[in-house]
């Protein structure tokens, strides 16, 4: 029973990765919005874009990690 509960918990934790996807999409859409207003500044900001995406994604990764731990380590 406990093992099954851990699997349910893993599924719930995996929702976090989807929520982090909203954050990643938000970063990308803001970048695109800004880039279309001022295309000449866009090229210099791609590095910032990827750093922002990486930081937003990191929190999704933690929930993925929790899901993995619940599946295989608990």
């Amino acid at each position: 029973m406990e093992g099954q509960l851990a699997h349910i918990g893993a599924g719930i934790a995996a929702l976090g990765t989807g929520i982090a996807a909203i954050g990643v999409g938000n970063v990308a859409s803001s970048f695109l919005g800004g880039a279309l207003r001022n295309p000449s500044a866009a090229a210099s900001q791609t590095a910032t874009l990827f750093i922002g995406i990486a930081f937003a994604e990191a929190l999704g990764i933690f929930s993925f990690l929790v899901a993995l731990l619940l599946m295989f380590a608990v």
Partner: protein
Amino acid sequence: METAEQSDGGGLVFKPMDQFLVKPLSGDGIVQWFTFTNAALWTSLAVLAVFLLLVTATSKRAIIPGRAQSIAEFAYGFIHKMVEDICGKEGLRYFPYIMTLFMFIVMANFLGLNPTAFTPTSHFAVTVPLALAVFLGVTILGFVKNGASFLGMFWVTSAPLALRPALALIELISYFVRPVSHSVRLAGSMMAGHAVIKVFAGFAALAAVSPFAVLGITAMYGLEVLVCFIQAYVFTILTCVYLKDALHPHH
């Protein structure tokens, strides 16, 4: 990873996680210290590919570069510019290490896209040492370069005094969580993408959905080519950001 044994069941006869098993290439299936496994094979192939691209292809030093040489030059210029933009001139001293990281990760990722290949970077056993090396190196470098004032990075002087202890705690946690997110991001995206391709391959067993399975595999494969490059890029750019924090901790 011992995932495949535990994740049986479900409707699929085909096990999507089987591709990540480390198997010895010869002998009776027991992995010992010096057993040559598929992980060792594909890691060596990635190193060989980096050598072929960066050393052999550029050895002629043609004024008008050929195809291989222009790819090598492009990769070199790309990483060089990234390090210079983020870390400044000072960071260029650490460019060789960052270039090595990028080339190894990108080659391991791309070679892992071959059918029946093994992706070394899909394993935490590979990405955690890479991330820990960056983390430890950057921390030691920060203390060597700045001495005790490196700790000022955690004490945000631009914030009100009452908030600073709480901010210091948050900064400290986020600092020590860096190697975790750094390594899990790479391994997780490699593993997830390849597993999704295999899941679509499992659908191909049903005749009714097999055309969609082929379409799905093609689409995911295209996405994976992109993801393989982007994850290597993100790993490298975060290394640059961490290096910048160590070199200039006060902003």
